[in-house]
């Protein structure tokens, strides 16, 4: 138990640095009452905009439906940046479609909160366990986390030959051999690109851009391209698909680069104009329960900040990994620069 707590503390430390202020007391928690469940059941439906891998999202939805029969979950899965684009379009169009929104670009929540799109709602578990990874005013909390490590296909690359660091990816032998996600589409990749450019400099990304990297969009795709052998090396992409693929017998493995691995937190929030406000709150509460969090770990390969969860055997515990910290507030101001530089160095 101790070690899990330690792991979450390590992340918590990263997150505190992130928000740039002391964690203050959250607004009071809203417990799941029978009245809430009844009201949610009357609404009968919840629309979940998420950037998590679609199979993971559907498994979470199935677990919710099993626990609360009669409430349907419509999963709307797209990359974080497209989720953002859609929420923005719906705001302009004055349409309220989304109930609960999950994006891997934590900067989105700062913007949404500023625009008044979110409802303050603090589930029990968030109040008890997420003090350090929740919005101080209770508008959102980190539902899940993942890393953006390096990956390789074990059929084509021996562990001893695999790159050990980001710097190794610049070796001539990996030219034309890599795949990566796109920051214009994926929040995970945008966050990772931000952290890498901050810690290693744009110079590194410029050189990577000359390596003839295969460009895909979502951070969930590089692991899949790796598994089918389309490219033997993944320059970025998410850790959780690597885990699930590896554990289902696909020939992929993870490398935590020596410079540090980008850490990506992925909050979740209830929308202020949620068309199914009660079901939305019930669902948000459900997302943070230890059971759901454990499901994310076991089935989804994700990292959880809930201290009552157990890390999965065979995966490197978070506390043993050197992390690059995330900084959503800084990302908000740097989006333009990141995208312009990226277009310049990678062509798309």
């Amino acid at each position, binding site marked *: 138990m101790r070690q899990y707590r330690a792991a979450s503390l390590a992340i918590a430390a990263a997150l505190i640095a992130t928000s740039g202020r002391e964690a203050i007391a959250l607004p009071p928690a809203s417990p799941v009452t029978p009245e809430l469940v009844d009201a949610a059941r009357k609404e009968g439906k919840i*629309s979940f*905009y998420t950037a998590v*891998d*679609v*199979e993971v999202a*559907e498994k979470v*939805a199935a677990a919710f439906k099993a626990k609360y029969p009669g409430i*349907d*979950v*419509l*999963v*709307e*899965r*797209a*990359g974080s*940046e*497209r989720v*953002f*684009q*859609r929420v*923005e*379009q*719906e705001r*302009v*169009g*004055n*349409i309220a*479609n*989304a109930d609960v929104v999950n994006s891997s670009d934590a900067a989105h929540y700062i913007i949404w909160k500023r625009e008044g799109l979110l409802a303050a709602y603090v589930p029990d578990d968030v109040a008890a366990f997420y003090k350090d990874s929740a919005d101080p005013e209770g508008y959102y909390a980190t539902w899940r986390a993942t890393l953006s490590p390096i990956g390789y296909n074990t059929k*084509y690359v021996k562990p001893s030959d695999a790159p050990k660091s980001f710097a190794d990816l610049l070796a001539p032998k990996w030219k*034309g*051999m890599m795949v990566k996600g*796109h920051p*214009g*589409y994926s929040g995970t990749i945008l966050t990772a690109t931000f952290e890498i450019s901050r810690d290693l400099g744009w110079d590194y990304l410029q050189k990577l851009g000359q390596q*003839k*990297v*295969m*460009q*895909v*969009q*979502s951070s*969930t*795709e590089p692991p*899949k*391209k790796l598994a*089918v*052998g*389309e*490219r*033997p090396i993944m320059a970025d992409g998410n850790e959780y698909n690597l885990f699930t693929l590896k554990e289902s017998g*696909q020939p992929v493995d993870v490398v935590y680069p020596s410079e540090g691995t980008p850490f990506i937190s992925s909050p979740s929030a209830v929308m202020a104009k949620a068309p199914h406000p009660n079901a939305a709150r019930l669902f948000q509460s459900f997302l943070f329960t230890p059971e759901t969090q454990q499901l994310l770990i076991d089935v989804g390969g994700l990292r959880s900040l809930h201290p009552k969860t157990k890390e999965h055997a065979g995966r490197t515990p978070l506390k043993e990994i050197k992390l690059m910290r995330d900084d959503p507030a800084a990302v908000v101001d740097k*989006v*333009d620069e990141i*995208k312009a530089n990226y*277009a*310049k160095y*990678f*062509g*798309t």
Partner: protein
Amino acid sequence: MSFDNLSAAAARLPGARHRGPLGRLDASKLAFGVCALVLLALVGLPLFWLGVSAFTNKSGAPSLENFARLFTDPTLLAPLRISLVVATSVGCFATLIAAPVAWLVARSDMPARRIVRALITASFVTPPFLGAIAWEVLAAPNSGLINVWYRGLYDLPPFVHFIDIYSIEGLIFVDSCYAFPFVFVLVANALDRIPADMEDAAAILGASGWRIIRTITLPLALPAMLAGALIAFLRSLTLFGTPAILALPAGFHTITTKIWSLFQYPPNPGLAAAASLPLLIATIVLLKAQSWILGRRGYVVLGGRSGATRRVELGAWRWAALALCLLVLCFPVFLPYLALLKAALTKRLGEPLSADNLTLQHLRFVFFEFSPTRLALRNTLLFAFVSAVLGTALALLVSYLATRKAVFGHSVLGFLATAPIAVPGIVLGVGMFIAYTRPPLVLYGTMWIMIIAYVTIELPAAYQQLKSAFSGVAEELEEAGRILGAGRLRTLKDITAPLLRTGIITAWCFIFIGVMRELSAAIMLFTAETKVLPVVIYDLNESGDLGAISVLGITLLVLTFAVTLLANRLPGFGAPAAGAK
């Protein structure tokens, strides 16, 4: 009284041809007014808003800033150039392949002609983005099945490849595969309509087979070929799905994917609108050129007395011709669908089919676990049906008014009905989004914005189809009707429309299929409640879920094919002339 006598009588009456614009007031004026208004709203409103945003800067003041950037920024110029290269190549290749195949199917005694036609319809029905995904499965440089097979055949090391679909050449190839049926349908329909009389006359006068083709068949099919090449060019220019799937992994943009990226946060709709104006201008110039080249020639071939078409006997070459057609069909149909089928039914795509590798997991996921499936299926079919009905009616009226020069301003109507082809779906989507999220018509979030988008986008194809069908029907037939006292609309209903049956069904199918294939505007305009299958497939592709994509893609194809076949067989509506399609 037969048509022969009627038309002869009509032709003898002085002034019969010229009463059009000055004719007595009838319902056609009203129809014109309605058409003009509808078209203006459909096409004009989004274009107006695009224009506004192209010529204003971020703070909303009038400015040429966007154009200055468009013509100086290399990250915008390169995509523009690539798009032109790709679209020109696609226009040429598609026509070069489609014209001979169309001739073999329509005018020769090649065996299995109907099967070949049906298979070409299958490639027509295939959404280009689905074809692109299938070609990724086949020809991605390392995991592509063809490359895996090639390495196995020659015992080559990993990462040596035969073809790389992630390239400009790959993009041109896949684009051509799914543009070629557009040209085919137009050319084959034109060839169907060429009566045997002229060819027989030439044959009687001693012309050889080739000479007949060169001097009679080819000139008569030329307008359709040019129209087809033009459609292939413009389709390719404005296509979004295929380049998004094939160009991005290769690290380059086409103009449509670039425009799409301009809507990512922070969005820059002004620049995107400016980037789409060159496309609009290029299209207008091309359409003008087309009518200038063809304008002076007469192409009325379905006159009062029409003979049956005559087929050229190929002798022993019949089988070689069939083999050629089947080879051509490998690329848009056989190979991609085999690849999709394999992806739908296997756990590990790259490995051979074996009991251990087979799975129903993807089917189960799509139909029982994946929550958007049912809603998207229902939406797609509903939107396609409604759009096809409304779009055909509109295209019929407009093409009638335009080809018969029935009212003052008919050329404006023709232009408006053709203009959407110049606007990339994605840009139209944005224009519509701006136009329909504000009063008086707040439609965003409803099914109507989707239907308006579909009708607008598919209108040019339906209009071209019906217009070329109209120019194949002699005006004398209508004039005869009008002399006997029928108004323009009644003539249209009782004389022209039945003669145009094939054309109308084709136009309906064009729109229906078009909706099933449409991605670029839908992706801007859908909401959770109005999500359609192409968007679902595109979303799944962005996260690399090939199994689910394949299941949904095959479902989409089967549904489209079923509906198209049904439309062609409806008693009293489809069967005789259209049976071939």
